[in-house]
């Protein structure tokens, strides 16, 4: 299983905060996005983290990973 998280405006837009997705061999972050949202492609301005570290859309995820999608950060 992959734990998928959405934050801030993406949480609101997708209407989901976190969900679990069945893992498949070779699955990328971009594919996870497609599968969990109605969008076809991962927008450029969406950031992705795999296991709490920034990664890119083509990163291949492993079973048990935590993948998060979020907008540009605005802390500090």
């Amino acid at each position, binding site marked *: 299983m992959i734990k998928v*998280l959405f*934050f*801030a*405006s993406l949480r609101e837009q997708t209407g989901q905060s976190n969900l679990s997705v069945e893992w498949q061999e070779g699955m990328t972050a971009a594919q996870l996005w497609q599968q969990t949202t109605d969008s076809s492609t991962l927008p450029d301005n969406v950031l992705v*983290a795999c296991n*709490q*570290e*920034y990664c890119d859309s083509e990163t291949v995820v492993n079973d048990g990973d*935590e993948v*998060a999608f*979020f*907008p*540009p*950060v*605005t*802390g*500090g």
Partner: protein
Amino acid sequence: MIHIEIHEQGFEPYTQLTTFQQRDEFIASQCGASALFIGTMRDFNEGDDVQAMRLEHYPAMTQKQLEVITESAVEKHGLNHVLVAHRVGDILPGDPIVLVAVWSAHRNASFDACRWIMEELKHNAPFWKRETLDSGESRWVEKNTAG
């Protein structure tokens, strides 16, 4: 010594600093210089009056990112100590949002490191601000100001 604090409730920077400096590992006479930055919620942004703000974050990643950033700073600048505190939750104008404090033997290292940590935090730590305007409208802050 590196210390990272995420505050769900209001925090007082000078109180946190005083407490930090009372630790046994903190030896003031080895630190000739300390540079600090405190970010506070303003009552205006992008030309609008702001009434309140909610700060969301990604707890596990926040901690990890702030550790990576502060450890890099210690290594790069030879710092003695670093304290980073960040507020999350509902905040009001005038409330402290962030504190970055570093200590080193000489001043250049402190000045450089404090500013570098702050920029890294602004660009990479997973926090998001949603502000409520005086008009009642509520909006996500889309990006941080350049400075």
